[in-house]
Structures are given as C-alpha cells and as structure tokens.
C-alpha cells in the first residue's frame, strides 16, 4: 500500500498546469535576487490526481466510518455546508474589501455571534480565533487583561483540574500564568477541598471543562465557580464539550465568565485531517471590551427603508488581533448553515441524542470493561482498560484492535487521571445500528483480550499499514524529502 512520493513520481520537464503567455512586456529582473534552482516536483495533472486520490484511500474519515473519539465530537459534516461555503459570494471575498461590498458576509458573522451568545447565555462574542486552542488562548488572555487593567497583577495563578485538556495549562502559560492543578474526587467532580486551598488573592481564575473530560457534569460546578468568584478569580469554560449542553444549560447562567466554542466540533464543520477549525470566544458583559477583534457590528442601524449597515468594530480594550484577518470565515459559513438548519429545537436534540448515544454505549459495555465513574454520563464516557486477569492488555491494544473491526479507536490515555483510559464519544449523528456494531466489536475484543491477547498485541492487521516504529521516526528524524 506504500505510495511513491510526489518527488519520486516527478519527471523532468513535466508540467501539470500551464499559465497563459504574458500579455505585457517582460520587466527587468533583479539579477542578484533570482534563485538558481527551484527543486519542486514535475508532474502531470493526471499524476497529481492519481497520487492524491490514492493517498486519500489510505485515510479513515467520518465519510467512511465511525469515530468514537472522546473530546473530539467527530459528527457528520453535512454536504450542503460545504456547498454553501463555496458560493462565489463567500469564497471569493478579499478580506480588505470595503464593508459595503461584503454585507452578506458581515451579516453571517454578526448573526453567528448572536447565535453563539444565545446558546451560551454570554453577552458578546468574537469569531476571530482560528481554532479551539486559539479561542482558549484568547479567553485566558482576556482574563489576564482584565486583572491587569484592575491593577491586580498579583493574580498570576490559574487553577486547572487534573482532568483537563493539555491545552489549558499551555494556554495559561502563554498568557503568563502559573498553573496550579486541582484534584478530581472519586465521583469525578472537582475536589472542593483541593480548590479551597488556592482561593486567595493570587488567584486569577480557573479553567473548567464542563461536562468534564470524564464525560460527567460536575456536581460541584456551581459551588466551585462560586468559590472562585468569591476569591476574585474568573472562570474560563473550555467549550470542547459544548455538544452536550446545547439547549440543556447555558454556561453563562452556570457562572462561567468566558468560554470558547469549537465550531468544528459542536457545529459540524469538518476536521480536515487536523484543521482548519474555528474557535469563537464568548464572554459576559464585564469582559466584552477585552475580546479579540475586530468583531462584526451594526455600524448604521436599520431604517424603515434600509437594512442595517454592518461593519467591523474593535472592542475598546481588546487584547488585540489574534490572526492575520478576521477569523475562519469559510468555516463560520458552514457552522452558520448548520445552525440555520437545526434551529432552536434541532440544537437541543443534538445534545439529547449525543447524550443518549453515550449512555447507551456505556451501559452496554460496563459489564465487560472497567468503568471508573459509574453514573449517567453526558456525551462521552471513559473506560479504564485494566483487567486483573489480562494484565498485559492495555488501552492501546484495544484501540489498535478496533481498527481491525473497521472502527476508529477512541481517544486513549486521556484524561491522565484514568491510567488506561479509553474515552468514547459517539456523537448524535451515529445510528443505533452503528452503535450496536461497535458494542459487538468491543465485547468481542474484550473476549479476545482474555482468550487470545496476541490478537490485540499484533493488531491492526486488516489495515493498509501496521503499527509504526515511532522511536525510529523521532531518532532518525526525517521530516522532509
């Protein structure tokens, strides 16, 4: 299944795309600034099409199978969203066009801000962050800016539960905070005693993922938020798990001050093999002036005859611009289309059925896989692959073996507090039939783990490629050809 690289396929003098002859005279070139060689491959159009078509066949994808990837919300990406984003009136807009010539685009940005605010209960939103982690960085930076402008520069400690995504501590450090982990208790909630110890005047805030990465709605959430607020800290919400809350609860009402959304998780825009995503950030009134910008705004209100004129507005005390232009507009169009189609009730059903699917899987697997936190979960749950009678089988083995059953493995070894974690998130777009096949595969693998563990250690075998020599990759580092 090995494929030649484009460099191996290259043949001298070949040309896959021709440009028209110049219709102007040749300008004088700066001779001392010319490159001598341009070592790019030389391929025909067909070479290129075949190469990438064949490469694509080596990928697993939502369009070919089920991704029970905890924390990633790999739901179906509707095709109409792709089509809409390709309308020339969206895809062919220069970012610096006069606002009068992009009123349609600005309307979408403005309404998308409003939609996110309405869903989350927040008062303001910025769509400029390029990704979830980028939104998170922006939000944490807003907290830093908030404390700074209040001259609270002592507030340098950011609390982060030990179950949190790795981006949380990384974002905090990027914003100049010191990270202080907070423990999770035996029911999977924030340990309030652990929290209390850090509620002092060095506290900048806390970053909470809710439902948390165990898939659980934190039963101590309201109290924890209250404690942090009492101590003068702000509460950051990691929106990665927002798929469970659409229409179920509004983060702002729960007490969060600022939160990011992952449009490519919650709003069905595709993951693209690792991006581009889009990461909006929303906040309450007291943080709105700090939002990254510019944001879409009504710059001339509607009149009886005319619709409003939309334009750009930089929040007053903005943390600044976080990207070259105004965010991932193309992705936002897809998310907007999705929201248009689902509407109020459809969005709530997303959370309901995502949660139903997760609990259905959990209840069908918990008799054969150890379940560390046994209570109704939200949109995902975590198993702990530790069987006393099959001690050499690890989460990784189960994950790899699932590929032989034509499933993508769940997220594994995360959250860190569950040592042999398999984190399973089915999303609402998967049918009962698919879940039943997955259950069957998982149960059959559990049986194999006890009876023929070598099947798991050797897995995958039905895939185009087998397990990789990761050590060699890092040691003999070859990252270009």
């Amino acid at each position, binding site marked *: 299944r090995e494929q030649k690289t484009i460099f191996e396929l290259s043949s001298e003098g070949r040309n*896959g795309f021709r440009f028209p002859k110049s219709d102007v005279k040749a300008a004088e070139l700066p001779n001392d600034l010319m490159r001598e060689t341009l070592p790019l491959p030389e391929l025909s159009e067909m070479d290129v099409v075949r190469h990438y078509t064949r490469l694509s066949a080596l990928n697993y994808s939502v369009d070919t199978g089920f991704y029970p990837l905890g924390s990633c919300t790999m739901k179906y990406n509707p095709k*109409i969203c792709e089509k809409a984003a390709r309308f*020339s009136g969206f895809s062919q807009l220069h970012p610096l066009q006069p606002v009068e*010539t992009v009123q349609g685009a600005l309307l979408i940005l403005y309404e998308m801000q409003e939609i996110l605010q309405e869903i989350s209960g927040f008062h303001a939103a910025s769509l400029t962050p390029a990704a979830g*982690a980028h939104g998170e960085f922006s939000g944490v930076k807003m907290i830093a800016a908030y404390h700074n402008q209040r001259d609270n520069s002592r507030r340098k400690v950011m609390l982060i539960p030990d179950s949190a995504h790795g981006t949380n501590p990384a974002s905090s450090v990027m914003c100049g905070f010191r990270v202080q982990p907070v423990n999770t208790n035996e029911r999977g909630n924030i340990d309030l005693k652990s929290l209390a110890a850090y509620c002092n005047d060095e506290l900048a805030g806390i970053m909470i993922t809710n439902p948390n990465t165990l898939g659980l709605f934190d039963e101590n959430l309201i109290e924890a938020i209250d404690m942090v607020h009492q101590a003068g800290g702000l509460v950051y919400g990691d929106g990665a798990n927002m798929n469970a809350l659409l229409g179920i609860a*509004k983060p702002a009402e729960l007490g969060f001050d600022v939160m990011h959304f992952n449009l490519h998780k919650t709003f069905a825009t595709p993951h693209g093999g*690792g991006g581009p995503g889009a990461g909006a950030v929303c906040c309450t009134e007291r943080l709105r002036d700090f939002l990254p910008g510019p944001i879409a705004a009504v710059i001339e209100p509607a009149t009886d005859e005319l619709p409003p004129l939309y334009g750009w507005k930089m929040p007053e005390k903005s943390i*600044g611009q976080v990207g070259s*232009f105004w965010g991932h507009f193309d992705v936002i169009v897809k998310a907007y289309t999705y929201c248009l*189609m689902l509407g109020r009730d459809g969005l709530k059903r997303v959370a309901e059925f995502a949660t139903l699917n997760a609990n259905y899987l959990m209840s069908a697997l918990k008799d054969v896989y150890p379940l560390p936190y046994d209570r109704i979960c939200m949109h995902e749950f975590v198993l702990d692959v530790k069987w006393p009678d099959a001690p050499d089988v690890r989460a990784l083995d189960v994950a790899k073996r699932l590929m032989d059953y034509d499933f993508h493995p769940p997220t594994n070894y995360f959250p860190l507090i569950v040592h042999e974690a398999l984190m399973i998130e089915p999303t609402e777009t998967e049918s009962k039939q698919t879940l039943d096949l997955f259950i069957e595969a998982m149960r059959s693998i559990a049986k194999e783990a006890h009876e023929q563990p070598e099947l798991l250690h050797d897995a995958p075998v039905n895939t185009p490629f087998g397990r990789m020599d990761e050590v060699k990759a890092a040691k003999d580092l070859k990252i270009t050809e």
Partner: protein
Amino acid sequence: MMFIPHSDAERDEMLAAIGIQSMDDLFEAIPKRYRFPKINLHEGMTEIEASAQLKEIAEADLSVEDVSCFLGAGAYHHYIPAVIDNLISRGEFYTAYTPYQPEISQGTLQGIFEYQSLIARLTGMEAANASHYDGATACAEAGILAYHQFRGKRKKILVSPGLHPHYAAVMQTYLENFDGVHIEIPEFKSLDSVTPQNLADLIDEETAMVMVQYPDFFGQLFDYSEFAEIVHAKGALFCMSVNPIALGLLKTPGEMGADIVVGEGQPLGIPLSLGGPYLGLFAAKKDLIRKVSGRIVGETVDNRGQKAYVLTLTAREQHIRREKATSNICSNQGLNALTAAIYLSLLGKKGLQDVARLCYDKAHYAAERISKIPGFHVLNSTPFFHEFAVACPAPVSEINEHLLHHGILGGLDLSRMIPSLQNVMLIAVTELNSKEAIDDFCRILSGDENDDES
C-alpha cells in the same frame, strides 16, 4: 430529525437499555434551575430553504470573480486550478481527524510530509512543520521560539516596519508583556526608509530575533544576505516572512541565511474567503526543529516493513507537556496545507516560475503605466513583487469608491493601517489582472472614462 438518525422506536429501545424513562432523565446531574433554558432562536429549516437563503446572502456580496481586483496586502487573488477542489472535496481528506492513528491515516500523513518537503524546498530551509493558522500567528510563533531559544534571557524582538501591520499586531498580542518581552518596531517614516540598513542599527545583545518580510508589505525586495550576517553577529535569530509565490523566482531565505521562515500560504491555491482560513508557513534550520511548535510528520516504517509516516516529536506538544509545552497549538490547517501541496505539485517547477514571473511583469507594467498618470506617483524605488505603493492626488477611499462604480476593486488605502500614509494606495497585481484590466484601471484613475460604459 436533521442529521440525527434515531426513530422514536429506537430512542425508546435505547432508553430502556440504559434503564431510564425519558430523555430528560439523562440530565438529572444538572441543577434544575439551569436545566433546559429558553433558547431564543428561529426554528430550523430544510436544505432547500437554507440554501436559497444563503444564496441570497451570498449575492449581497461582491465576489472578486466579478470585478477587477487590485487588492492584496496579505491576501492575493490567484487562479485556483480545478483539480484542487476536486481532490480536497474528497471526504477521506476533509472529514478525517488529526492523524494520531497512523495505521489508518497515511493519506493525511504522507500529504503533510510532502507539504513539509515542498515548503522546505521552496524556502531553501532544512525543515518545515505541518502549518500554523496563518501568516500572522506563524510570526508570533517564531517570536515564541526565539524567546525559548534564549531561555527568556533576550527580551527584544526587532520587527521591520515592512512587516504586515497585522502580523506585527498579532506578535504583540501574543508576546508583548509576556515575561518582559518587548517588540520593537521602528516608526514608519517613508517607504525609502524601510530598508535592512535602517534596521541593522537597532540590533543589540538583547535582541532575540529580527523579523523582516520578503517581499515586504510594500512589495519591496532586498537581498538580506549581509543583513543576516549582522543579525547573527549579534547572536540573534533571523526570521523572514515570505510570500511563497515570490519564491518561484527569488533567492531563498535559506540562501540568505534565515534561521526561521514564516509566511502566508494563502496564495498557494487557497480561496480568499474574507481572510480565512489561510495557512501559516513555518520552516527553520534543522537544529531549531525540536523547538518548533505545531505538528511535524516524520518518515518511519511499519511492522510490515512498509515505508510510512507518523506524527513525530510529539513530546513537544501540549497534550504531553501540558504547562511545559511551548505552544497550545492543537488543530492546525491540515486541509489547507494539503491544498498548498496539491497546488505546488500541480504547478511544479515550471508553473510556479511562470506564475511568479507573470505577477512580477504585470505589477511592473501596472506601475509603469500608473507612474505616467498625472498626479499619481509610484513610491517604490527598489525592485518589487506583487505590489507597490502609489501616492494619489486624492484620498484613496474616494478613488476606490469611484473605481468600484466601474467594477474595479482598487488597492488598499494604506492610511487604514499606517495613518501617516494618507492618500497612498497599495496596489497588488497577479496573473489574473489582464493587460486590458490594468489599462482600464489606469484609464479610470486618469479620469478618462469616455469609452467606459459601466
């Protein structure tokens, strides 16, 4: 239900299997007073309705396909070959997840490995990563790298006033006030003063990195080879932000001695899309690679002896290093990196040379024509690529309004970004600006609209 496959019967069966009565029982953990808030949104609509509505909204916009476009300034209107959308519309590419499971992700992984190779070759560098969000954040990430390279001991990052003002702004958002880091940007005085020479004097022993743009924000080209030596003599890192199309023709940053090369990959087949998503290029010398943030794909073998690719050096990343990571980057621009790789493979050596040459020649043709229009004055005095600044006899916004009436999207009003540059337009020309369109543009600029019918 839209995109939810469950029938009522299936739902009930599943509730029974879980052992609960109703859907609401799933949410008992949520305090009652917060549960099921009122959401004040419209009702959903069908695909037919949504697509009609979106079509109408899109038609309220003026697509650059329907005008003559002279806007650049960091986003360029190039032709996108039909092959590209055909390939990146393949579900196996665009609906795939980050390739953490290499056994079933070789399509993405090999695609990115080839992308890295192409970017390294294009920039003349030894290594490249799998992308950053865009040109601006790539600049900021270069700054972060420089900070770490000197373990925070050098606090100054010197930035050329020829760097795109947005990129400088984003570097400030990321870095300013972080552990005392200071970003120094000499004030813009005149175009003639934006030179490597004028920047050289500001490099000191405090300087962690010097950042220039090539071609710079005003289209200017300089050979930075000597400048690189000066930077290195002061012990700092030298970073260049590039336009990848220009590198089809021009001496590479690698040849000039850059340590880091960043840039905006949008011109490589990525649609303008009102500014995003674009593609942050990031290449570096080999000895810096372990400090580069973002994903990196490396070659290896699988247990069947096949050559294969994996995400490598993952120990740098946030999901392993957490607070010790140098970046929080998680998703990147995978699909856009693939787009750029397809674009570069398709054009290849000759195609990229050709498009670069067309941009070069047409921009110079336009500048020459404009320089002959009374009242207009081309400010660039050195070689330039893609774009050039023109002093105009009236505010650019007025001229642009007039141009728009004639179906022309004029160049950037530079005063929007650099207030001292009143009445100066930054004009960009690509292979898509025909001689005829350039001539029309000049005709309107010169006030000679007799033959015009628009």
